[in-house]
């Protein structure tokens, strides 16, 4: 029988089975203790899979094209970062690389690492460590910020050049939503519980 402490007021509760769709609240302060998610592992895994595909698409296809006169310039995400690096904006380039490519990649990979075994009723090794890494890096995934930046620059560049949105842009957009959906469907308590149960 698991016990749970309210993370607001530290009142310890005995947590019983919560019916589907229900939510457990703190008896004292009313903070949300637990809201079990339906079919969490399965759904998150599906979204992760979609995320991986979108991530690949977003990184290999043309991201944006500019046409000035007869000159056409097409970039993929990596060349954009490379260009930034070339133009001596190394910190920004590193930051973009980290927040837009590396973190989401680790995100998706760690999810796969955790969820695929769990789906098959196995517990992966170092689950706690990987999951903690995931939780640690989660705030650093800033694809939506990058997306906003892109949108702002597009609005600014529209007057100077014709913008040709590439496939990667749409994939990127979709990836943002998929990552958000993953965050929604993932039941972290459940993951931690898995460690308990299957030890």
């Amino acid at each position, binding site marked *: 029988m698991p016990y749970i402490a309210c993370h607001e007021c530290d009142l310890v509760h005995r947590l019983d089975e919560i019916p589907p769709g229900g939510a457990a609240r703190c008896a004292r302060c009313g903070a949300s203790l637990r809201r079990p998610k339906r079919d969490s592992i399965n759904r998150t895994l599906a979204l992760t*899979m*979609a995320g991986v*595909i979108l991530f690949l698409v977003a990184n290999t*296809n043309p991201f944006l094209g500019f046409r000035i006169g007869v*000159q*056409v310039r097409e970039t993929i995400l990596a060349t954009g970062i490379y260009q930034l690096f070339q133009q001596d904006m190394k910190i920004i380039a590193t930051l973009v690389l980290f927040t837009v490519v590396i973190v989401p990649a680790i995100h998706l990979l760690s999810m796969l690492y955790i969820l695929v075994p769990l789906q098959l009723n196995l517990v992966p090794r170092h689950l706690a460590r990987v999951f903690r890494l995931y939780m640690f890096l989660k705030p650093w995934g800033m694809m939506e910020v990058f997306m906003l930046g892109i949108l702002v620059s597009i609005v600014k560049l529209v007057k100077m050049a014709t913008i040709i949105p590439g496939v990667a842009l749409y994939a990127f957009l979709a990836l943002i939503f998929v990552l958000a959906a993953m965050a929604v*469907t993932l039941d972290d308590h459940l993951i931690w519980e898995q460690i308990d149960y299957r030890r």
Partner: protein
Amino acid sequence: MTENTDGSPRIADAAVPVVKKRRSISIVWIVPLVALLIGAWLVYKAVTEKGPTINITFETAEGLEAGKTKVKYKDVEVGTVQTIMLDNELEHVKLTVAMEKGADVYLTENTRFWVVRARVAAGQVTGLGTLFSGAYIGIQPSREGKPSRHFKGLEKPPVVSGDVQGRRFNLVASKLGSLNPGSPIYFRQIEVGQVTDFKLDPNGQKVEVQIFVEAPYHRYVRQRTRFWVASGLDINLTANGLRVDTESVVSLLIGGLAFSTFPNEEPGPEAAEDTRFKLYDTYEAARDDRYTIKRDLIVEIQDSVRGLSIGAPVEFRGLQIGEVIDIDLDADFENLNFIVPVRIRLEPERLKVASPAGEDDQLERWQRLVDKGFRAQLETGNLLTGQLYVKLDIFEDAPPTKISFYKGLPVIPSVPSASQEIMQGVTRFVKKLDQLPLEQIGQDLQHTMAGMDRLVNGPDLRNAIQSLRQILSELETTTTSLNAETVPRINTALAEMETVLKDLDGWISADAPLQGDLRQTLEELAAAARAVSDLADLLERHPEALIRGKGGEGK
């Protein structure tokens, strides 16, 4: 287990249902499925739309940029440069170009690539647009030939793009002159094509000029067509005045070619692609080279050949029938004899020969000519420049000689040139003049003059003149008396003579009695003669009649 956890009553022996976990696929899996489908579609598209990747080498990558420079045909993009690298020898740049899908069909060994940059050449400005857009790679697709993926880029854009109909030809020239790719080609002063390229032949002896003649004019290039350089001005000073010819002002500036098929000649069939033609330096050279039969001869010249140049005309009675092609100097140190064998090339077709001789008859024909006095002679063609030409003619008084051979070629004997002869004559004359004892003559002459002087001014002559005068005056007196006395007598004598002549006329006129008498006398004389004849006859037959008389005959 006696009671349930919720404490509800337990029904003994109740069957425990087999709880099967629902293994249905959650609807969420549609999301990755859609993503997968999109991804797969993208991959499929990328794979199927990917055209062939080719390599092009260039001398330089000036103006080219990886990922940016396009390959364009008729201003339509058909490829993009992917990478630019130096080759291992650091001599060329290697371009990897991703071509559009479907490019395979026209990527053959005949396909050409070149870099289009702004260029000013041969009176044309091309590629100005590239000043703003950057250079791009031009392609001249070709469906013929073996498929290829490796190309050598041209440094200069081809002058004629591949979609222009026409024909290419090669011209062989001794020098390039002012020709350049893009130099125009004229046919009857219409621009019909361009020079596309030129190169030195491997031996470095000739220049090969490649030209392109556009349709439909390429049909006028026949097998006997001749090309000549039409650059520059052709100025002719003739009896009609000054005439200036040029194909066009453009060709004046940038050079050009012209071609024509000359009249009086069988033009032959249309020339095939890549036919080789000779390129003549001038229109005249092209016009005069219609003679295909050439015959080389040697003319041995004893005089100086100063002023005789290779290419000098060989004339027969004022008509050019060939040219000098070589001048040598042959030294024979044993006899200290120097001979200049001048090699001439005759074009026998220029002579309208009634019965063309075969190869074997040639020599015999030359020998006959030489026997007749056929000789070569150097003549001054131009008094100002002293240019010489070889004159062939028949000199009736030339000493007969046999045709000899020099390096296998028949040698036409020569006679000294007319000017040479005059010079020799003058020299001889001067030499003789030199030998005259002029001083002696002068002295003698002086003597004579002195004697004459003495004679003229001496008393003898004066006396002589005086006596002459005396004689003359006496003669005058005599004449006067003669006039007074003698002349009337003579007149009388003449009148008498006239009378006598008149009488004489009367005597001898046809009806004069003298005539009748004379006739009668003659008749009688004839009768007498007949009688004598009869007598002689009788005597011949009967000589005895002389003794016995005529009567004896009757017995």
